[in-house]
């Protein structure tokens, strides 16, 4: 390992966060595709749209947890995408850092809010 880390073979991407974020974006995307399919199936197989039917769907424990995991995946997915946007267009380091911190804060707040919503029914 140490011998490979010199000259042209020097390891310059050791953090591997590029690959990690790429993978996170794919895994969370697949999860959201599956959730979309399940949600559509549940809506179209249910009877006439009403509060009772809608609330009953979200009252099921498996659906509540599935929704929670998918929403958390969505927020992680959004973090990777929004961070890319800041990195591409916002060059001043201070402003970029501020926007990234604001994004993280906002997404964590959304995550907490989502859980609150899901467990209110």
């Amino acid at each position, binding site marked *: 390992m140490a011998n490979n880390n010199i000259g042209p073979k020097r390891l310059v991407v050791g953090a591997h966060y590029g690959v990690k974020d790429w993978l996170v974006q794919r895994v969370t995307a697949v999860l959201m595709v599956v959730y979309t399919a399940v949600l559509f199936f549940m809506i179209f197989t249910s009877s006439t749209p009403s*509060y009772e039917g809608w609330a009953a769907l979200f009252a099921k424990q498996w659906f509540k947890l599935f929704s929670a995991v998918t929403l958390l995946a969505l927020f992680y997915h*959004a973090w990777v995408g929004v961070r890319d946007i800041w990195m591409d267009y916002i060059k001043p380091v201070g402003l970029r850092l501020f926007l990234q911190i604001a994004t993280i804060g906002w997404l964590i707040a959304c995550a907490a809010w*989502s859980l609150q919503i899901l467990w209110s029914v």
Partner: protein
Amino acid sequence: MTEAVREAPKKERPEFRNIHVTDIMKYRLPMAGIVSILHRISGALMFLLLPFVLYLLQESLRSEYTFANFMIIASHPIAKLVMLALVWGYTQHFCAGVRHLIMDTHVGLDKDSARKSATVVVVITVIVTALVALKLFGVF
């Protein structure tokens, strides 16, 4: 040799930079490029509208009373337009995302298939958005 190099007139070397925002309209992007920038725009749109979506979800779920409130909000023309924008964003991002996932398996990477799949993404999105628009504004 060194003399010749020194005496050669300095040519103006062309400078290539990233596309600036003000240049956007001057560029004719290929179909795959259009889908690429629309992926970013739709993603940003959904990120910015997150509070609206979560608010609607909250109102629709919390109680029968808030559900009625949700129905009132959802029937407002401006809310319908925002929801339509969200439907467009979701469908665009969904289709282009599935295209990404397929391409990750090394399928359809050549120029021709990439252009075709990009066109399919845009066409599906436009059809779905148009159908939802007709439904939202009560045509059927």
